[in-house]
């Protein structure tokens, strides 16, 4: 006559759990699959001599955070305020914070 509600829910959760398993499977497969590409990238880093990932291209200290020092964001003036949005996302590297 009509589908039993608990069956519908249990089916829904079974599908979800299956999808979650798929997600984990895809992640582990993806990681293995990506190994050659990662190695290729690592080689490129070595050849060209790179020091940072290209995440943000608006500010210098966001483009090369490991190379920046504390005054880099304030190259213009010691009192100039942070005006790059990417600066709100990333934080100064640990070696600047502790020394």
């Amino acid at each position, binding site marked *: 006559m009509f589908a039993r509600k608990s069956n519908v829910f249990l089916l829904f959760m079974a599908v*979800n759990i299956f999808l979650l398993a798929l997600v984990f499977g895809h992640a582990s497969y993806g990681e293995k699959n990506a190994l050659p590409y990662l190695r290729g990238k690592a080689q490129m880093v070595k050849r060209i001599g790179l020091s940072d990932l290209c995440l943000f291209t608006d500010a210098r200290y966001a483009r090369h955070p490991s190379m920046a020092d504390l005054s880099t964001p304030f190259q213009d003036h010691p009192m100039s305020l942070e005006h790059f949005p990417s600066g709100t996302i990333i934080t100064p590297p640990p070696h600047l914070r502790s020394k």
Partner: protein
Amino acid sequence: MSRFNKQRNILDFTLSSLLRRRTKNSALVIVYTLIVFSLASVLFFTQAIKKEACIVLQNSPEIIVQRIVAGRHDLLPADYIDTIRAITGVQSAKGRLWGYYFEPAAGANYTLMVSEEPGVEVGRIVIGQGVSRTIHANRADIVPFRRYDGSYTSFEVSDILSSESELVSSDLVLISESDFREMMGIRGEYVTDAAVYAKNKRELFMIADKIKRILPDTRPITKDEILRTYEAIFDWRGGILLVILSGAVIAFVILAWDKASGLSSDERREIGILKGIGWETSDVIAMKFWEGAVLSLSSFSLGIILAYIHVFFASSALFEPALKGWSVLYPEFRLVPHMDPLQIATLFFLTVVPYTVSTIVPSWRAATIDPDTVMRL
């Protein structure tokens, strides 16, 4: 078998009960899913980038030596490199030539690097995918650049770096040394900084220390510091991440508070009826448990699955406005999927458990009422 059946029966009633207030409960599921989605998306995104940095940047130069003049980065004299080479333990030291170039027409920033990659010759450059996308440049195209003195020069694009390498190369323009020096006006006695390699990796700090002592106007940065930069890069204490986190926590607390602040008189009446027709206290508690669990489990699993699709199939498209900021050149975040079961479990215990508990606890007293109260309803 009958215990399983009993729980299924109670689940049936719980679902009917939830469907009665369809709008409210749908809204709850949507909000809850969004919370899990945001948190999980941030988690997946930051983890994937950190993991990649950790692997890929293992090959960064072991020590990079910068020069600081009046508190700002300045060019490094080439003879500093000879001094560095002479330090015991140094295997090799090479000058690096690189800088930024702002293209006014596109409004984009490139990173220009001198390199000996195949394809880089005098008059010919190799560009990253991001550059190619931004100025619509393909192989064999001629791209104009402005020199330091205002005059113009141009280069032919001989190759475009792979799209798999975007995360390290998206904004790169690889150029020959003579072209770079001519364009930037940097004389032969100077380089941007130096890349130093040690014979024995364990001596890196010692060598960095020595460099700092011998050349006091320099600032050595070790590979270790580079790697730790990326370990800490998306620290939750950073601006936007803190906002997202706080928002999620507050929204969640509000959700759980709504449940934890007690039952409505309708709900109390219903529990009275159930007890009157033969449900035990434990059956009522089981029903309340299912009420919390159904919403939590559905929202949690949906949130995780959607977050995974968002980050690893849709290149974190929803984060783009925040990540892009003022950048014009924006890399395509094709990240390597990485799932840490421990973190998923933590997220589970921080969301599903408190929510389910906050659904059960206020019902405890109502569930223990004497069945005969139903006679007086």
